[in-house]
């Protein structure tokens, strides 16, 4: 993507110019006219939304539920979300005032940043990280500050490394575990250490737990469930990944009332409310979707094991990702950069992956491979990649 000069450039704000376009734009373009591509480049479930969830929305449309809801979201959905968080993690957030239904975690993240940041405020996050993390901070005129993580530490983050980055301008720490792109999770102890640092320096922790249910070993620890952190936590969660509902656009933020009030103000003026049918579907998901989640997670787990073993067998060392639906193998045995590797792999073997460098400097040398795709495709992709690695091995 070479940006041509245009007389319209002067209309584009500095704020918009400050975020770079997504690093994988050119893969879209390459993919356009290719056939028989196996894509491990996606970031969503390969399931359609369980039908009973979709049907609840269809029925609501038939009945004429097509109006705006309350800005905060349908009360029943907030009640159920509150109950869900209590049952799952033993945390207590009031449906009125402490929960906001949003257009996915995407919106919740943007609201959180705009609600808490002043220009120049720093937000510490891991490198690599989900692409919207630094963008959301930059768009709120804050400054993202990176903490390096590595495969040596299974891409978990150490509280002391975060503490080392704290300055007078630090306002918040943004974490997302299980992680996109690495599949890394955090142990309870590591989160406790992080909580201690946040409290000591009185920082806000924004915890994106959209992949919480996609945890394959041990239990997911919700950051908000740690003792004494409530006043320092904005918890973001959603329906996209666990219930296979990416296209519905619904999620939530929970936080102390002052924070939710500020976020709701922005939400009210920019969004009004999350889509009504999507909220109805989310209600159904929370009421009756649990068995679907369990079944899908079991299925992801089987594929996870196959792909991780597969990468290690073909000579792309891959640590065990314990959450989300991504494997993050190292491609250093080929001596290529991750971008070069991804491009050549697509051209030569028609397998699409995302270069780790799209997620930060520390993602260099890795590729993100989503295993939410059929087992047959995973096997075939592994065969093609094996051939590719043999050919290019240093």
């Amino acid at each position, binding site marked *: 993507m070479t940006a041509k000069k245009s007389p319209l450039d002067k209309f584009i704000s500095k704020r918009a110019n400050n975020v770079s376009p997504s690093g994988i734009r050119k*893969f879209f373009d390459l993919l356009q006219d290719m056939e028989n591509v196996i894509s491990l480049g*996606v970031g969503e479930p390969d399931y*359609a939304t369980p039908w009973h969830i979709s049907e609840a929305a269809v029925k609501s449309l038939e009945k004429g539920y097509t109006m705006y809801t309350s800005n905060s979201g349908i009360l029943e959905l907030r009640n159920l979300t509150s109950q869900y968080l209590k049952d799952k993690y033993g945390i207590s957030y009031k449906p009125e005032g402490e929960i906001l239904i949003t257009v996915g975690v995407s919106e919740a993240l943007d609201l959180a940043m705009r609600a808490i940041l002043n220009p120049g405020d720093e937000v510490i996050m891991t490198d690599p990280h989900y*692409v919207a993390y630094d963008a959301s901070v930059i768009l709120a005129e804050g400054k993202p500050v990176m903490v390096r993580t590595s495969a040596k530490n299974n891409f978990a983050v150490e509280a002391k490394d975060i503490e080392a980055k704290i300055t007078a301008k630090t306002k918040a720490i943004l974490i997302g575990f299980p992680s996109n792109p690495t599949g890394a999770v955090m142990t309870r102890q590591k989160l406790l250490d992080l909580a201690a640092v946040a409290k000591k320096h009185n920082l806000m922790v924004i915890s994106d737990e959209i992949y919480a249910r996609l945890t394959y070993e041990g239990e997911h620890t919700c950051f908000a469930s740690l003792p004494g952190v409530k006043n320092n936590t904005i918890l973001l969660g959603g329906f996209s990944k666990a219930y296979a509902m990416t296209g519905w656009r619904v999620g939530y933020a929970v936080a102390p009332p002052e924070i939710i009030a500020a976020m709701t103000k922005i939400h009210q003026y920019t969004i009004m409310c999350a889509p009504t049918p999507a909220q109805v579907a989310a209600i159904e998901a929370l009421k009756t979707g649990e068995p679907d989640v369990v079944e899908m997670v079991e299925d992801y787990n*089987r594929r996870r094991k196959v792909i991780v073993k597969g990468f290690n067998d073909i000579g792309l060392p891959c640590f065990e990702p314990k959450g989300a639906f991504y494997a993050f193998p190292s491609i250093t045995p080929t001596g290529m950069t991750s971008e070069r590797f991804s491009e050549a792999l697509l051209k030569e073997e028609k397998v699409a992956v995302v270069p780790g460098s799209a997620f930060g400097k520390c993602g260099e040398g890795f590729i993100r491979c989503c295993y939410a795709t059929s*087992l047959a495709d995973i096997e075939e992709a592994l065969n093609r990649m094996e051939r590719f690695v043999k050919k290019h091995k240093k």
Partner: protein
Amino acid sequence: MLKDILKILENDAHASEKQIATMVGVSAAEVTNVIKQAEKDRIILKYKTVVNWDKADGDEQVWALIEVKVKPEPEAGFDAIASRVARYEQVRSLYLASGTYDLLLVVVDKSEHKVADFVSQNLAHIDGVQATVTHFVLKRYKDDGELLDGGEGVKRQQVVL
């Protein structure tokens, strides 16, 4: 472990023992043993393929659902009659059901004529069979959990961040 293996195979009879071993977290040899035992115990009955014959322009196939009212035998109840009915190879499935009839058969044969012959010449002559109602299948929409048409699904974006 048996349950995990069965779940995988029920969905994909193609899954290799090596793959299953990785997914379940045991050795391939162990998977082989468990499967062999399950076959012996008739937990695993057969490995089959769900085929949409309508698309394969193969031989004509006629499907019929046949309800059968029977008079149970004093000693053996419904089982004796059922086992007799089950012997016919055109009977693909056979169930004992609650409601207005007793046995429900899924019969697959080459023509309506053949199905009619089966009903009048075989089924009706079995002792204890009192009445039959035959429903010819006009269209199959879903079989063994698979949609016959339109099951290809919606295309996802190929690269998503």
